[in-house]
């Protein structure tokens, strides 16, 4: 079931064909694809996502959701398009990696809610597991006031941003320089110890002084662990879910997750009610 929250002043969704203007490898199985699409770039905000579809094919049939990595600007400093960073995991991303510069993709967005303002919290920690790092570059820039998004005034929203980024091994760490040059303090963790702390990124987080606000994105077990850390630290925590989606716009009811309500729980559509939720409101399995 659902409650439509359409009074949030979000901008209208656009569907466009967008040309690939850059496509580079960032890490093992990880690529950044740059799409020229000024209309979308002007309105999208950190935390929001787009659906991407390979045109002219019926298999894969459906679009796939991808977070905004960042906007890119033209010579005048105006938003010209968006960057998406993706990990090759299956059917669509396996074909996407071979799409050449000057070919086109179909894109629709901006979708979902942006990251909420940390409301005065001056010490913010972002926690990423694997490809869950993608929403955080633009988020860092918005938090530190180094780039404006969606026509919002550019202002520093917080003093300190730490990024805790966990990967399986060093070869999968993507975009670390991007995060550092955007002004975040980056703390790395890897399962095999090949880069940064050996072990889970949530353990690394917990070994440091508590921040005032947590944001997380990554596989569900990691987010669940993060929700527990947030509880122990007694700090607000927002997580961005990577639930599979068929439409991204709220019309298919595929992407539901269980959200606590006054009288128990209810399924909510991640694409329109999320993808960002307060971690204490989710029913973790």
């Amino acid at each position: 079931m659902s409650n439509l929250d359409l009074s949030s002043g979000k901008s209208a969704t656009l569907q466009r064909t967008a040309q690939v203007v850059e496509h580079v490898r960032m890490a093992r199985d990880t690529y950044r694809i740059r799409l020229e699409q000024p209309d979308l770039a002007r309105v999208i905000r950190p935390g929001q996502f787009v659906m991407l579809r390979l045109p002219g094919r019926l298999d894969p049939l459906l679009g796939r959701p991808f977070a905004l990595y960042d906007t890119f600007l033209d010579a005048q400093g105006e938003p010209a398009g968006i960057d998406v960073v993706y990990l090759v995991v299956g059917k669509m991303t396996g074909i996407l990696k071979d799409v050449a510069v000057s070919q086109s993709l179909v894109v629709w967005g901006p979708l979902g809610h942006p990251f909420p303002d940390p409301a005065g919290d001056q010490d913010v920690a972002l926690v990423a597991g694997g490809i869950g790092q993608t929403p955080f570059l633009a988020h860092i820039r918005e938090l530190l006031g180094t780039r404006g998004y969606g026509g919002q005034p550019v202002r520093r929203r917080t003093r300190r941003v730490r990024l805790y980024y966990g990967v399986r091994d060093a070869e999968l760490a993507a975009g670390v320089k991007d995060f550092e040059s955007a002004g975040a303090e980056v703390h790395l963790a890897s399962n095999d110890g090949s880069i940064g702390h050996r072990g889970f990124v949530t353990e690394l987080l917990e070994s440091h002084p508590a921040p005032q606000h947590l944001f997380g994105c990554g596989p569900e077990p990691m987010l669940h662990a993060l929700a527990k850390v947030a509880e122990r630290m007694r700090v607000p925590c927002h997580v961005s879910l990577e639930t599979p989606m068929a439409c991204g716009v709220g019309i298919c009811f595929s992407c539901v997750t269980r959200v606590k309500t006054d009288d128990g729980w209810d399924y909510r559509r991640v694409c329109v009610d999320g993808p960002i939720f307060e971690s204490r409101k989710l029913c973790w399995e």
Partner: protein
Amino acid sequence: MDLSITLGRLKLGNPILVASGTFGYAREMEGLVDFAKLGGIVPKTVTQAPRAGNPPPRTVETAAGMLNAIGLDNDGLDHFLKHYLPYLRTLPTAVIGNIAGKTEAEFLAMAEKVGRSTGLAALELNLSCPNVSGGVDFAIDPAVTKRVVAGVRAVCSLPILAKLTPNVTDIVPIAQAAADGGADAVSLVNTFVGMAIDWKRRKPILGNVTGGLSGPAIKPLALRAVWRVARNVKIPIIGIGGISNIDDVMEFLIAGASAVQVGTANFFNPTLSGTLADQLPAALLQLGATRVADIVGTLAG
């Protein structure tokens, strides 16, 4: 060019509609689709009581299609009338309510209530949802289909569309029963029951095990259903199944549908329905037609 069409007592500005369960409650599509271009909108099926729906995963992509087992996730009829209908009735196109009852009595009670509220152009009966555990698939039995349709007609003055399941040996007698019961048109078809398996884990992929197949993969099957009913039953048809471009629309019209509903394609091409309405006049002209009715059911041979 006259794009208007007639389905029994229902008159629509053009034959391009969007299918129930694939267009939300319309509001989600604001900005993507100019509703004024559509012949009509069918919002998601409403049930008497709220239903949480099935556990995820609820959909899985298959070759040129998808399986869904949403399980009629909705907030119930009263919520629909109070929270969705006020918006829907402001739209510049026909809105066709879609209901599913668990029992015949529930169908009639819902139809009566819906009929008393203003703002709907017609009522589509979802006699065919395959995902409601414990629910009855009404449209597998001609006698039941006729009784439900006739019962609804007696208590509700709106034009009635009977949406049928293709999961039957022969859809013709069911469509005939809907016609006999007084339906203004039949909507053909709902999804085909199927399943997807993860062989490595020896598990079904959908939380509900089985689901309804939709999308381009089912178009040939849906076309045949439309064609057979058009040849054998005197009732207007709304063709549904895999429609993804203007050629598909024309194929359904030629096969015998007076109108079509776009379903799964709304998911992977959200602006499509408006585009199809723009493209229809040129396609009709290619056949030298000036009215939609000129080509309906004109398959040669």
